[in-house]
């Protein structure tokens, strides 16, 4: 691309910022504009459910300071929402009446919280957590909150539950499935964390459906009504039931969308002049052949790196090993690989840390490892998964396996 060409990035979250930064560090010489509907500098999201709730220091969150953008010649267009993409003339229009013409468009639109469509959902005291603005509001509310109900026992719900509980708030977690984090971890790990929360006095209820948020008569939350069970008193309710990808712009522009903006292994969408990266995309996971949508820092970073490489002429297919982490009561949970389809589990004490690991297999083939309090083994698992030949269950053996030896084979 020549210096007169223009890459426009829609979305100033993790993926968008990373793409902009990587384009410049790969010496991309064209114009780069990073546009996002949030008014702040791009920021790191994971601390919002954890440390940020304690310290409330915005300056610890910025992914880059504002001098970085000037120095790297990255144009910022913040606090405006893109409302349309005209693919014929390669133009994106914004709600402030402005437009940006692109030679290549990168969609890094992210995801938004799923709404719980029950009566009372708009009452004062019902919150959700995705943005910095949400987190600031939540911090303010937590100073006088006494009883919190968290609807959703996934990563965000549990991290927030731990943060709130540490600040002295009484917490109940409501989960519609039969175990915690059922979408992402194996039963042994769910059980471990359930125990961690219950042992500090967090109430966890399973197989419960919320059918209303109860009004105190003045428009504030008074409690959470459950189908077939007693209502729970609350003055603060967090809805944490997952996210939906922001695909509307892509749908309206006629791009292929399938639970996420469909991209190939080079992040190219169904229009060769448009790429998509991060939480909003769906793609084929190379190791398993499955279509996936990953909600993680790793995926945002690695897909951003992939698109930047493509745009500077160093195309390299996306084959990164997925990995995730969560920090909650019970410690550090790290997942290497996609373990959701596993049909066999081998649980072992950690060989290095204080915790345990669960190796997950499908049809005797290694899918990945869920680690609790075993950070070094997590890193080894990631390396194992990156090997060109799939590791089998027979090679891993029992709990006396030598992971490092497998790596050097």
């Amino acid at each position: 691309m020549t210096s007169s060409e223009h890459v426009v990035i829609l979305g100033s979250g993790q993926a968008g910022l990373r793409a902009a930064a990587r384009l410049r560090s790969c010496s991309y010489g064209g114009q780069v504009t990073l546009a996002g509907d949030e008014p702040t500098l791009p920021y790191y999201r994971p601390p919002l459910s954890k440390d940020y709730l304690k310290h409330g220091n915005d300056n610890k969150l910025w992914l880059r300071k504002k001098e970085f953008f000037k120095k790297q010649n990255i144009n910022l267009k913040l606090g405006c929402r893109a409302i349309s993409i005209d693919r014929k003339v390669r133009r994106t229009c914004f709600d402030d009446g402005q437009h940006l013409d692109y030679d290549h468009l990168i969609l890094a639109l992210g995801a938004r919280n799923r709404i719980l469509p029950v009566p009372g959902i708009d009452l004062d005291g019902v919150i959700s957590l995705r943005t910095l603005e949400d987190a600031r509001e939540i911090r303010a509310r937590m100073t006088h909150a006494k009883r919190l109900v968290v609807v959703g026992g996934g990563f965000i719900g549990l991290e927030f539950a731990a943060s709130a509980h540490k600040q002295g708030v009484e917490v109940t977690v409501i989960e519609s499935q039969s175990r915690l984090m059922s979408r992402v971890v194996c039963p042994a790990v769910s059980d471990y964390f359930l125990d961690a929360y219950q042992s500090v006095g967090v109430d966890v209820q399973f197989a419960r459906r919320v059918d209303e948020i109860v009004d105190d008569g003045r428009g504030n939350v008074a409690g959470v009504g459950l189908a077939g069970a007693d209502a729970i008193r609350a003055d603060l309710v967090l809805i944490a039931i997952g996210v939906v990808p922001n695909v509307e712009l892509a749908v309206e522009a006629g791009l292929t969308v399938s639970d996420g903006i469909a991209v190939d292994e080079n992040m190219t969408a169904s229009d060769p002049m448009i790429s998509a990266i991060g939480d909003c995309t769906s793609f084929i996971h190379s190791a398993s052949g499955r279509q996936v949508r990953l909600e993680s820092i790793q995926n945002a970073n690695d897909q951003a790196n992939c698109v930047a490489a493509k745009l500077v002429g160093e195309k390299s297919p996306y084959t990164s090993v997925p990995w995730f982490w969560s920090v909650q009561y019970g410690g550090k949970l790290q997942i290497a690989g996609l373990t959701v389809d596993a049909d066999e589990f081998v649980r072992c004490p950690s060989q290095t840390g204080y915790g345990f690991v669960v190796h997950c297999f499908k049809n005797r083939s290694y899918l990945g490892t869920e680690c609790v309090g075993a950070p070094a083994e997590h890193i080894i698992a990631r390396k194992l998964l990156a090997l060109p030949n799939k590791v089998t269950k027979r090679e891993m053996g029992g709990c006396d396996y030598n992971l490092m030896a497998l790596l050097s084979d």
Partner: protein
Amino acid sequence: MTILVFIDVDGNETRVDATDGDTIMETAVDHDVEGIEAECGGEMMCATCHSYIDQEFLDRLPPRTEEENEMLECTAAERNERSRLTCQIIVDPEIDGVRIFLPESQY
């Protein structure tokens, strides 16, 4: 304002005027210093912010936590007694002039 000196494997030096209170990792990332990846943004999950700290300054730093120690076991470049995760080192005037030796690779 504390000066950090990053030295790559070829001996090239990059002097950076760091802000007290930032971590060495944050400073490197902000100033686009190549060689520190910080995949996990400073949450001690990835060991890609590994560097070797000049012996003279090592003792002025708070010691490694058990967690940092564990993560250092899996750095891509070989670990030695001067290895630290730079996301765990906070910049302050005490370490003005610290020499930070970047490893060959973080992967």
